[in-house]
């Protein structure tokens, strides 16, 4: 059954924990329970913010707070389970982001804030989280270099913890299309990682092999 993993190693690591189940919290928050709303916020906001970082760059926090305003306001109308809620929140955030981009487009300049993400060590300069922040920012910056449909597919699945179906609903696409986009995104990321200078600042170390990786078809 596990033959395919056996050829590499037998150990399967969990890279990140499964998303917290929010069903009960959502119901409680709908009844007005502020504590439950906080639980929801804490569980969803980090992923939401990262998703938005890739969509709108530095304005992610502003767009996220707009999204939360709407989430708080429309919470009563939401029907669904925990995964459904994440998808719903992501959809709201996404629409806010697209609104924002439309507004921005009318403004001059101010382009590609994403590229600065990797250089910018986050606002809190506490030494402990700085490296992590850098790694995470660098990761997001790299993901932001993907075509948007691929970046969104990867983020909704990895960062928001949605399955292909739910991600598809957020994006208005079929699950298969999202899967394909995410897979292409991963392949492209793997290739980006092969290039010198794109290694993550911590953890994986600088030993990125340079040019010997053949790479698959150029995307």
């Amino acid at each position, binding site marked *: 059954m596990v033959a395919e993993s056996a050829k590499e190693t037998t150990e399967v690591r969990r890279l990140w924990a499964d998303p917290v189940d929010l069903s009960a919290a959502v119901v409680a928050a709908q009844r007005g329970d*502020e504590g439950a709303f906080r639980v929801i916020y804490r569980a969803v906001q980090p992923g939401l913010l990262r998703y938005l970082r890739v969509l709108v760059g530095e304005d992610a926090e502003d767009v996220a707070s707009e999204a939360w305003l709407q989430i708080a306001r429309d*919470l009563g109308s*939401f029907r669904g389970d925990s995964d459904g809620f994440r998808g719903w929140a992501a959809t709201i955030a996404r629409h806010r982001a697209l*609104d924002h981009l439309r507004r921005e487009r009318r403004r001059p300049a101010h382009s590609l804030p994403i590229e600065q993400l990797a250089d910018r060590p986050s606002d809190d300069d506490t030494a402990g989280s700085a490296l992590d922040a850098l790694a995470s920012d660098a990761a997001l910056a790299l993901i932001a270099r993907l075509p948007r449909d691929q970046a969104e597919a990867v983020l909704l699945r990895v960062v928001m913890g949605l399955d292909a179906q739910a991600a598809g609903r957020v994006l208005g696409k079929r699950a298969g299309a999202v899967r394909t986009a*995410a897979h292409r995104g991963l*392949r492209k990321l793997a290739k980006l990682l092969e290039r010198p200078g794109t290694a*993550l600042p911590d953890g994986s170390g600088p030993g990125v092999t340079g040019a010997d990786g053949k790479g698959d078809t150029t995307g």
Partner: protein
Amino acid sequence: MSTHRSPRIDRLTAERLLRGETAGPDQLAELLAAAAAPRGELSGEEAAVAAFREAHLVPALQQRKQSMIKTALLKFVTLKVAAAALSATAVGGVALATGTGHLPESLGGPVPSARPTATHDIGKAHVAGDDPTNVFPSPSPSLSRSPSASRSPSPSLVGLCRAYQAGAGDNPGKALENPAFTHLITVAGGRDKVAAYCADRLKTRGKAPASRPTGGPKDHPNGKPEDHPSGPPKPDKTGGPSH
């Protein structure tokens, strides 16, 4: 140890990576983990909770306003009815009014049901999620929510914030003693948090108008609730230095 694999990733591997599973070290897995690993990022919590509180406070506030209006209406109608009673067609007049449905409504009978202000926002929101089986009550309709947004409680809070900031310069503590700010204090989560809440709130708001001259209202009839008529009057009345 870095058994660096060629970037050929089959569908199975891709799916597992996307689910957060991996076998062995891998750059790509590290990258995804870094992207997924949560850290801080909760600086907006109080603002979000304030919005939540606001959304749940508004019905009560509006209800109170509503009942005030009802009382006023009732007085007015009572006078009218009294006047009508004085005239010879008293009975006919009331009957007529009843027939046309004006009287009961102005008397306050159907008012709550005809204009369920308390649940108004929620009702509006249901436009987006009419179908309860729809897990994703697509937010797009509510994003272009001109009616709902104009009823949003935010404008008055923004107005209150502006009023507060205008008055706070001289004496921030004193400014908050004005009962008009009670709501603002509640929403902000305490007297001492009003300044920060307002700074945050107005900062966020302040960004939007920048894009307005170029045509914000055209495509975004929704996004600019600042001009809601119910917003400005409040602070004018209460926060103005004239009082």
